[in-house]
């Protein structure tokens, strides 16, 4: 027997509301199956199981808000029924990710119908005073999308909610808590290096000219791959600072900061990014951005990024020095590509240049290693065809 608990979907999560069970007692589950949907400040999250087995019983009823770590269900291991009398906790599986943090007690909210919905939909519903429970969801997994809310707002059937959910504020508070903790606990050091991306952008333009629109690549994907490969060379930047020690990441799972329309951001992981082709990474990035914005990410994507990339170049920022997302130990920020005078081979030329910067936890690594990491990214981006 093992206990399936409310997972920690990032350092800023304290509690979640069980929305629905996707599996019932007696049904078999395989590692990676989606067993439940949980509602958080980041929208509805599909929760995966971490082992094979059979659902023994469901402990928490839909509509209940519980702190992280609360037992949600009991699962019989695939090896057969556990011997009777063994306390479930004795064989509880390792937590899904080394995100270890004592959660402050959160009073369980009274059971109320909670509807999966995108953050933008929640915000608009709040503005319009619409109860999401009364809105028919057309998004993934029946999630309420912004369109659904607008539609409900326009129809006479949409009745004002008794107590509109203030989700955007919840996300703001969650980000505030995580970032304040980071600045309180993590001794950041910061490094930056300008990178000539003439080769990378020319390669990308060539490549995209040959591709149909749906198969085109974005520069962001080259950056993600370069960061992932760079981390192979400097592994002490890939992982977590937990209980006073560095815990290396199991795999290189690159969290990509995605800003949500209507405010807030999430940084879901692209798993094993160092071993994937640019095409696969591009497909996964498109998919995850889409799901982040409609509010249907999966638990593993939020729970286990081992590093984060923040790409603020889109907003026209030249360079940025981000705040590490605890318990990770490094964050890479990328600025915009801009034409600059560049000295090379004894001459000055105009070249497209971007600034990559590293915010790293000095407890886990030193500036020298951080510098090697940025140099590795630079070197990798000079050979885009090998990414």
């Amino acid at each position, binding site marked *: 027997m093992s206990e399936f608990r409310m997972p920690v979907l990032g350092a800023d999560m304290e509690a979640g509301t069980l929305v629905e069970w996707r599996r019932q007692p007696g049904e078999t589950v395989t590692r990676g199956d989606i067993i439940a949907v949980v509602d958080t400040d980041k929208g509805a999250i599909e929760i995966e199981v971490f082992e094979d087995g059979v659902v023994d019983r469901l402990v928490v009823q839909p509509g209940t808000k519980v702190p992280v770590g609360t037992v949600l269900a009991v699962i019989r291991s695939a090896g057969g029924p556990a011997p009777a009398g063994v306390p479930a906790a004795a064989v509880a599986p390792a937590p899904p990710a080394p995100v270890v943090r004592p959660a402050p007690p959160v009073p369980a909210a009274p059971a109320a119908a909670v509807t999966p919905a995108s953050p*933008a939909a929640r915000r608009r519903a709040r503005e319009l005073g619409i109860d999401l429970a009364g809105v028919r969801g057309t998004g993934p997994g029946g999630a309420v*999308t*912004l369109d659904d809310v607008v539609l409900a707002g326009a129809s006479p059937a949409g009745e004002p909610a008794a107590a509109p959910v203030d989700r955007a504020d919840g996300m703001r508070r969650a980000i505030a808590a995580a970032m304040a903790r980071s600045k309180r606990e993590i001794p950041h050091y910061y490094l930056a290096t300008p990178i000539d991306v003439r080769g990378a952008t020319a390669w990308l333009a060539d490549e995209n*000219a040959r591709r149909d629109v*749906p198969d085109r690549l*974005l520069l*962001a994907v080259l950056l993600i791959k370069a960061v992932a490969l760079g981390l192979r060379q400097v592994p002490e930047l890939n992982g977590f600072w937990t209980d006073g020690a560095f815990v290396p990441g199991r795999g290189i799972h690159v969290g990509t900061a995605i800003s949500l*329309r209507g405010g807030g951001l999430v940084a879901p992981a692209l798993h094993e990014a160092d071993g994937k082709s640019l095409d696969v990474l591009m497909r996964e990035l498109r998919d995850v951005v*889409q799901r982040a914005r409609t509010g249907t990410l999966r638990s593993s994507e939020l729970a286990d990024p081992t590093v984060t990339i923040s790409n603020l170049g889109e907003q026209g920022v030249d360079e940025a020095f981000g705040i590490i997302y605890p318990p990770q130990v490094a964050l890479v920020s990328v600025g915009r590509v801009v034409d600059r005078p560049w000295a090379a081979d004894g001459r000055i030329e105009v070249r497209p240049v971007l600034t990559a910067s590293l915010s790293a936890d000095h407890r886990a690594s030193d500036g020298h290693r951080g510098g090697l990491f940025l140099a590795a990214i630079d070197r990798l981006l000079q050979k885009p065809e090998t990414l």
Partner: protein
Amino acid sequence: MTPDALKQTVLDALAGVAPEIDRAQIRPDVPFRDQLDLDSMDMLNFMIALHKALQVDVPESDYRQMATLASCLAYLAGKLAAKTPAGPDRPR
């Protein structure tokens, strides 16, 4: 395709990328990026939606001509006009 139908198609594609936009509020001469906060992923998804709806392939080098609603409509109208004479759907 009539200008109105084309505009409708373009606005539908935009709404698919940025569902919260108010179509009536879109200013035709202000870049989408500035008024709708679109990033490069949004722009790519916008192109993919247009590709699906109109079977038009916009090369990356022409993206700057797609920056505003007005320039985008003019560009697509030109593309469609150039395509129609040889198009398979043309009545014979």
